[in-house]
């Protein structure tokens, strides 16, 4: 039976933004810490570390989830996507572009997690209405913008993704 002992590090492998990665970590290492400290993917932020603030939200098998509420070894063999996976060839994604245009961030600490939640929402529900957007955002704390510009940016991004009018 595969028992990972507490005093040693053990290999873990998963796919990050389409590329296979691996690291050696102890069983108690959180997914956030393996991403940031072992792999160097520091786009995923660490806030409350008990699942409340949403800053660490990443996509696991396409679904948004808290990286601080997951052990690195639980991600063995999983498909992970983080904020580093949104832009392609130095071009921001429609969602990131909309965030920039609508001033949907100030300090930017919560932004990575919010982008991963909204990106997953629009993949599953391309016509998500404002209610659905606000519902998805309820799992994130932003202390700067009061959410109004974030919702505006999300609506604009949705319209762009759907090919509708650019401004919400």
């Amino acid at each position, binding site marked *: *039976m*595969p*028992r*990972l*002992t*507490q*005093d040693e590090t053990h290999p873990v492998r998963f796919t990050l933004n389409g590329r296979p990665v691996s690291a050696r970590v*102890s*069983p*108690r290492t*959180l997914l956030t*810490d393996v991403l940031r400290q072992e792999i160097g993917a520091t786009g995923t932020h660490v806030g409350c*570390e*008990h*699942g409340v603030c*949403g800053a660490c*939200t990443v996509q*696991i098998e396409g*679904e*948004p*989830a*808290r990286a*601080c*509420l*997951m*052990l690195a*070894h*639980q991600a*063995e063999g999983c498909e992970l996507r983080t904020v580093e996976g949104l832009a392609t060839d130095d071009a921001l994604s429609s969602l990131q572009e909309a965030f920039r245009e609508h001033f949907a961030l100030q300090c930017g600490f919560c932004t990575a997690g919010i982008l991963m*939640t909204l990106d997953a929402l629009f993949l599953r529900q391309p016509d998500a209405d404002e209610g659905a957007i606000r*519902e*998805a955002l*309820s*799992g994130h704390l932003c202390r700067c913008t009061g959410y109004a510009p974030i919702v505006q940016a999300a609506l604009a991004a949705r319209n762009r993704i759907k090919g509708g009018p650019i401004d919400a």
Partner: protein
Amino acid sequence: MKPAPFDYVAAREMGEALEALHQGGTEARVIAGGQSLMPMLNMRLARPATLVDITRIPELSRIEAKGDNVTIGAAVRQSTLERWPDLADRLPLVRAALPWVGHTQLRNRGTVCGSVAHADPSAELPLCLIALGGTVTLRRRRKTRAVAARDFFQGMMSTDLAPGEMITSVTFPAHQTGTGYAFREVARRHGDFAIVACAAIARPDGTATLSVGGVADTPRTLDLPADAQGLDDRLNEFAWHLQARDDLHATARYRRDLVRQLGRATLKEALSCRD
């Protein structure tokens, strides 16, 4: 906030999980989605010596509708149940309650049985299990047993689970024709812990039950006879009986008032939607 050290066992089959739990005894804990356990580990409110991950055991990922029951395996995620095509037909009460369970980011990892194992007094899924009269199936190395939900929950975050034992599934009685169901909750923000949560079931013979979470140490149930006279008095008596306490989120008085008001509204909704 990081967890204290532990050994981690990624069990591939039930035998491995049960053996690891047996060896670990009182120092071993099961982890599935981890959405209740990981915060406890991160804050070091729980410091198990061994964590047994059961999510890779194929037989625990099944939702089975058999006869009048729906059995949900210990590795079934809340979002998987939310997307189960038969949910509205078979478990209308659970369908109404699931959107209130944390946020979507938590339901994507959290399991139905994990919420039951955690036994938070304000949690929605234990409330539904008690309201519907469901059962919890428990297994240890050489023994399997089924416990009625009303006996399983013993107090705040305290259950009948024994050392070396794990929940393998929970079973909800499925929807009966002519029965109405309703779920309502008041929380500071949608997705936060319930200040008061109500689940009501109205049966074809006119009898009804109201189950309330968030007030006492475990969800409690009030059985109402057909054509209950003096409903307000019964709800008032029930509200006092729950021995609400003040905390950061609400006063005892506010909780009692919610039991009366939200309780009445939830019962009314259940009575009006009997099909």
